[in-house]
């Protein structure tokens, strides 16, 4: 109770094979993207500084000004920070409208109520990813856009050398 499932993965890209459970102390970084505010003002400002005919053309803003513009509600930041801390995350990087958790598999599994596995690519690449459901506290879900860094599979591309031989 008290959890909302954000995603349930029951398959993975065909070129990756699911392996063993990830070791508990394997490092994991994930980013909780919080819902931003004033997105209409942000977009208006973007077009104003980018349009040559605008009186505000090239009147760029600073990182701090932009961050203050879109900053999520204080209760969203505090709530997500508390959730992560209580789950055992010791290092949290505040990115204004997102919080990045630097932790381990065991802590991430508690925070997100999920399981992490080792996935293997035919090229030899390996990646630790969650499989099955992951969830967040139901009271926080309305403040979260997405959780990034736990279920993405890297795109392993063909070496472009194969496309064209040297002239």
């Amino acid at each position, binding site marked *: 109770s008290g959890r909302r499932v954000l995603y349930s993965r029951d398959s993975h890209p065909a070129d990756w094979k699911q392996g063993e459970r990830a070791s508990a102390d394997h490092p994991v970084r994930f980013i909780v993207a919080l819902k931003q505010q004033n997105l209409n003002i942000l977009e208006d400002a973007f077009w104003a500084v980018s349009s040559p005919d605008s009186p505000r053309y090239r009147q*760029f803003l600073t990182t701090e000004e932009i961050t203050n513009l879109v900053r999520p509600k204080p209760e969203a930041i505090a709530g997500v920070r508390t959730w992560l801390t209580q789950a055992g995350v010791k290092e949290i990087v505040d990115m204004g409208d997102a919080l990045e958790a630097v932790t381990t598999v065991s802590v991430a599994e508690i925070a997100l109520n999920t399981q992490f596995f080792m996935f293997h690519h035919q090229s030899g690449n390996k990646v630790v990813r969650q499989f099955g459901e992951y969830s967040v506290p139901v009271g926080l879900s309305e403040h979260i856009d997405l959780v990034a860094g736990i279920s993405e599979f890297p795109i392993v591309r063909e070496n472009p*050398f194969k496309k064209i031989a040297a*002239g």
Partner: protein
Amino acid sequence: DATAVVPQTIQNSYGTPSNHTADPQSSTGVIEFEGQSFAPSDLQNFATQTLTPIKALSSDHIVGPNSPGSAGVEATLDIQYIAAVGRGDTNWFWLEGGTAWLYGFSTHFFNAASTPLVVSISYGWSEAAQCQQGIGGAECSQLGVNSQQYVERVNTEFQKIGLKGVSLIAASGDSGANGRTDGLCTESHLNPTFPAASPYITAVGATEIHDGTPLSNPPPACSGASTCASKGTEAAVSYSQSHFASGGGFSNVASTPSYQKEAVSSYLSSGVTLPPSSYYNSTGRGYPDVAAFGSNVQIYAQGSIQGVGGTSCSAPIFGGVVGLLNDISLSKSGKPLGFLNPLLYKMHSDKPGAFTDVTIGDNHCTEEGCGFGGSCKGFKCAAGWDPVTGLGTPVYSAMAEYVSN
């Protein structure tokens, strides 16, 4: 096969300067994923063997877990060509070491204390498959995290980066209008590529040279397209010559932004043969915006000069041109150009000679589809903007004059 491209080909064709004094603030960078690293020694060898002065990267401009001992072709290509074209500019190499794909890059980049002013991204995937490859499977939409949500969030991050004055540039993809997620073209729709299909980024398509002639060393003086025409004709890359097709089409997530409405409308009403209307979203953001060489581009890697192809070449080449234009802007006003598209489309409208219009070619094929008999649909080049080569390739002297004024 395709006529080979070296840095002098770009000078000769686009008129970029061989001698250039950069503004000290001007900087360009390439963004890498998938652990793609570069070797500074390769960059130095490339500079030596192509007779191209290139500034070495300082250690604080190499961000992320770069591993020179396992340099990748993509990263090698990107840094060599953005540096070779944007001569004198400070170069950055940014390897997004996390695993959060474009969202990870964009939020880390935005929050970094110091970043380059021009950024080239030679990566992309189906706009719809950000769900599958980026976040989850097809079923994820019912659970609150879906492809559109991911794309929209990244688009917001791109706005934040543009609002700081950074120019974002992306390759338009190497699998034609159909994209690579349906390589044999069995589905009844095209698959736009992200981030190229973002309205908040400048997307670059690929061209090849037809009837090229060898360059002498030093190359003959060349001040613009008219005097360079004898060096060959630029066309959109073709499957027969370059073995891939340039990405392009219309976003299913973002609507046509105002800066390109007129250009897109002109193309759609031009009478050019189009795919069936059900295959694409004619009210979506059209891409690419511009084009540059993307076929048989010579790099130094793994101990020798070798040719590579793809819009992965085109994006850093155009990025280097933007670095040069930023020099002018910074020198005159102390401000960079920022997000480029409204300026580029206005430039095309006010001064069409700032671009060489590429009117030959199409982007029908995927590598699998056209190599193994699949019947793929796509778009054709036309006069003016088209969803194969955008507004065309740079005529640097005219662009520089426009920006200067």
